[in-house]
């Protein structure tokens, strides 16, 4: 991005978020001595409930690491996120976790959970089945699956009651509302950090205790209060895909002339939207939020997703869509042909990028991003 955003950026300090991300391993290992931590992979995991039971929910991070140990346990056609996470677990980097809780989304984490349990246990390893539909019977079923989770958590010392759940729901709803406000401010050109900075803010929340994270977020929005809109440069685009752990990809995207104005990512909007649910009791509220959430291809249909992604594009004024997929990510790869066709029909150019395990895609990306923005801009 160019200097036109410099004024805005100079007032904003994102270093607390970056710091939380960079020291997460030691911090969490220390933290787990006073509060048990439970890992999660996917944003369909009901972290509010884990928190309400007295645990710190921590999103498992895979990142860039040479996969050696995991290669002897899983084939190479597994998404890099799952392979690198398993590698870290096998190297003992997740020893501080008391287990992993997973909402049943895609086939990969489902199978990986038992591999973790066999090879990186002991602990509580549990998958919560999720409903595919949204009617009353689906909600009743969901309630049962969540009650079962409460029982499992109780088995390792968790204590949940309606009041504690209400508190956790309030806390995470406030966090999500604040994050959604940052999205709004980004759209209004008031908060225009580099995209890598924007997603670092989100990433920090995956490992910080939510109480601390909310303080950081509130400080940030407070500092944004008096800032005037900037005139950011770059062609506005939406990024859609699995989760993006290599945030430097966004720097390449922006250096090539693009600007991220909206996303449909697992470590972005799909974590935030909606901030809250509604219902007669806290469980209903939790259920409602997860049933209403912005859909992931692993848990919804391409029919449902197409209009929602198009609405995001329209609202944000994005002029192109960049699909950033973890290599071998079946849910996203499978939805792609339909999404791409619909967007192309609507005159939106698309680009597909697969992020492999080596992370050696910098050269290729520079060229492809460059050509894409030149095509849109020209």
């Amino acid at each position, binding site marked *: 991005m160019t200097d036109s955003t410099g004024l805005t950026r100079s007032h904003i300090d994102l270093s607390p978020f970056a710091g939380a991300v960079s020291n997460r391993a030691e911090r969490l290992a220390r933290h787990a001595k006073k509060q048990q931590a439970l890992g999660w992979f996917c944003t369909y995991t009901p972290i509010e409930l884990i928190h309400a039971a007295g645990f710190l929910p921590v999103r498992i991070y895979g990142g860039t690491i040479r996969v050696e140990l995991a290669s*002897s*346990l*899983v*084939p190479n*056609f*597994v998404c890099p996120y799952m392979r690198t996470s398993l590698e870290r677990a096998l190297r003992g980097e997740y020893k501080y976790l008391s287990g992993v809780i997973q909402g*049943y989304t*895609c*086939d*990969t984490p*489902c*199978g*990986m959970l*038992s*591999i973790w349990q*066999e*090879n990186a246990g002991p602990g509580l390893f549990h*998958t919560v*089945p*999720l*409903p*595919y*539909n949204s009617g009353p*019977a*689906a909600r*009743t*079923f969901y309630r*049962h*699956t969540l009650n*079962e989770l409460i029982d499992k958590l109780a088995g390792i010392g968790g204590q949940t009651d309606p009041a504690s759940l209400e508190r956790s729901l309030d806390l995470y709803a406030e966090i999500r509302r604040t994050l959604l406000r940052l999205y709004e401010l980004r759209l209004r050109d008031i908060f225009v950090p580099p995209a890598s900075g924007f997603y670092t803010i989100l990433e920090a929340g995956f490992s910080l205790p939510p109480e601390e994270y909310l303080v950081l977020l509130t400080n940030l929005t407070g500092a944004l209060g008096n800032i005037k809109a900037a005139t950011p440069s770059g062609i506005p685009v939406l990024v859609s895909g699995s989760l993006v752990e290599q945030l430097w990809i966004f720097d390449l995207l922006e250096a090539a002339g693009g600007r991220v104005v909206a996303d449909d990512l697992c470590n972005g909007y799909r974590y935030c939207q909606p901030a809250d649910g509604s219902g007669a009791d806290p469980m209903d509220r939790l259920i409602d939020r997860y049933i209403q959430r912005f859909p992931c*291809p*692993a848990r919804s*249909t*391409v*029919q449902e997703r197409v209009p929602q992604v198009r609405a995001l594009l329209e609202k944000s004024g994005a002029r192109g869509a960049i699909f950033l997929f973890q*290599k*071998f990510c*079946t*849910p996203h*790869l*499978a*939805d*792609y*042909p*339909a999404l*791409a*066709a619909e967007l192309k029909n609507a005159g939106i150019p698309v680009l597909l990028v697969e992020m492999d395990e080596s992370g050696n895609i910098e050269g290729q990306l520079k060229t492809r991003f460059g050509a894409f923005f030149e095509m849109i801009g020209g």
Partner: protein
Amino acid sequence: MDNTRKSTKRLATAKELQQIVAGFYLEGHEAKRSGKPVGWMPPMNGLIEIFYAMDLQPAFPENWSPVCAAFGLIDRNYQAADSMGFSPDLCGYLRNCVGYINGMMGEEGVPLGGLPEPDMIFMPGAGCVPTMKNFQYIARRFPGAKVFKADLPQVPIEDIQRYHIDYALSEINRIVEFLTRVTGRKLDHGRLAEVVRLSDQACALWDEITSFRRCLPTPISAAEVGLMFVMVTRQGTQLAVDYLTRVRDEVKQRAEKGIGIIAKEKVRLFWDNIPLWYNLGLFNYFEKYGGVVVAETYSAAWSIRLDTANPLEALAMKSLQSYPMVSCVSMKRRKEMVLRACRDYHIDGVILHSNKSCLPITLGQMDIKRALQEELGVPSVVIEADHMDPANFSMAQFEARADAFIEVLLQRKGYRQ
């Protein structure tokens, strides 16, 4: 080297199978002509019994893929899928099916006439993601068909609770209401009880047939896996029961007479994961060394018995168990099942097909490998391939691995010095 080869079958009753396959597809086209509603559905659940009980016509796009592999149609289907933007990393069933429905479907001269067009589509919310996506694309392709979005708990078999069954039951009831509304036909519960009884009888026969794999020598091998077609497409019919009875009689007779697959059976093998549909000949590969592939994982999905006293609940249970049994949803059960098969069938070695097209069945194989070694002392070998895409399979590499493996097994059994 040629990657594709047909299997050599030893059962006389296996020859009838071609008739049965052709008959099923013919019936589908006749149904279409006569106005009997056709529904496309995923396999391994209780829908088929409800369809037969309501005299509706089921069609199984997933099962069409092995047929395409046998007829050499997959290249063209893949090309069609590629041109739509489907990645070659996706499951071959999905690629083949979307390629077919958006390509050659409806053309003159498609073998067996292809799949009859759907009037109804069941979009599942369980099983694997490729299956779910497949049906979503089917629904996109046939906008005139009535679509039912079906839910089912995804839960390991050992963790099934009453509430999972209740939810599965409520979905079955919703399906029956949907079918009644769309087709105007009512479900006769007496007829359903009869269909479920036939279905269970087929499972019992299936179990009985596979139980003869205990015999030394085995009278039936994995090369007869095509028999599964009856379980996939005809469960709940008299036709399946009659055919499986004939198969059972033949296998029994062979067992009693001590007729094996080959003259001298030296080594008994187990195949984990889906067969290579374009190269079922691999099941005969080891025969030149005295090796027989006695059994394979896939058939376990059909050995789930049904509680005939509670037909609807039986279908709910079947739906909850079939897919988890052979995939990573119920790893514990699957591992137990493989180990039990190895014990029961006196298996000397296991071939683990690391299947590029099917992650859900491939994940966890290394834990199975370890358990085989530690608990049974049974060695295993990993073969990298793909159940639908010959491009991901190298016959030369297979031969090198398979030959080295069988050499070890022969030595262990004292056949080689």
